């Protein structure tokens, strides 16, 4: 069992949800978060963006100010990890920095609260 945590662009959420359902992964949890990546802010860009230069505005995508993102958390059986990851990458990739990151963590146990069932029976099926 693995937990897949993905941090993606907010405006890609609808496509992501749709693609995940089509891939057979129905259960997910999402949260609004703020974040920054490896980019370091260049103040001349900020000035340029204030003056309205297109180039500066597009490049600000990788600045170091905290940028609103969505964090998706999905717990899946080991066999589904690859499918989830490739779906997420396919839908969210624009090729520019700021597309986000995906982390795969080991999950120890999953329990359905309603019935008390444990293990992989609780999760989406392969």
């Amino acid at each position: 069992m693995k937990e897949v945590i993905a941090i993606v662009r907010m405006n890609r959420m609808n496509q992501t949800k749709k693609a995940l359902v089509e891939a057979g992964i129905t259960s997910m949890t999402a949260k609004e978060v703020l974040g920054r990546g490896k980019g370091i802010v260049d103040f001349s860009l900020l000035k340029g963006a204030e003056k309205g230069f297109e180039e500066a505005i597009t490049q600000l995508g990788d600045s170091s100010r905290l940028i609103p993102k969505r964090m998706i958390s999905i717990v899946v059986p080991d066999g589904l990890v690859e499918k989830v990851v490739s779906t997420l990458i396919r839908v969210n990739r624009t090729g520019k920095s700021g597309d986000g990151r995906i982390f795969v963590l080991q999950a120890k146990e999953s329990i359905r609260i309603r019935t008390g069932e444990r293990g992989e029976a609780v999760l989406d099926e392969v």
Partner: protein
Amino acid sequence: MHLIKAIVRPERTDRILSDLMEAGFPAVTKFSVVGRGKQRGIKIGDITYDELQKDLLFTVVKDTDCEYVIRTIMKAARSGDKGAFGDGKIFVTPVVEAYTISSGIKESPDGGMEEVQV
């Protein structure tokens, strides 16, 4: 690779973020949470506040940097010299794989990198 989850005082977040930036770890995700600790919240008079506002910082680092990042966060998040109740907690979880969406590069804990075809 390890995922470091730090629950800290919201008023300390700015300092932690700038310290991490200086230390060379710019990549962080944060969101606000509410929670209580071992002290069962704060009791002021007859009222107990057990949903205290905190910020959760979320960063993934290499095994070799893990200790250093934890120390950086701890130093910046601690109030005063000795610290105080409510300064927060840091949890560390191993990460099995990490992907960068824009390039499709997959990183493994052993340092291996490969591009994923989609």
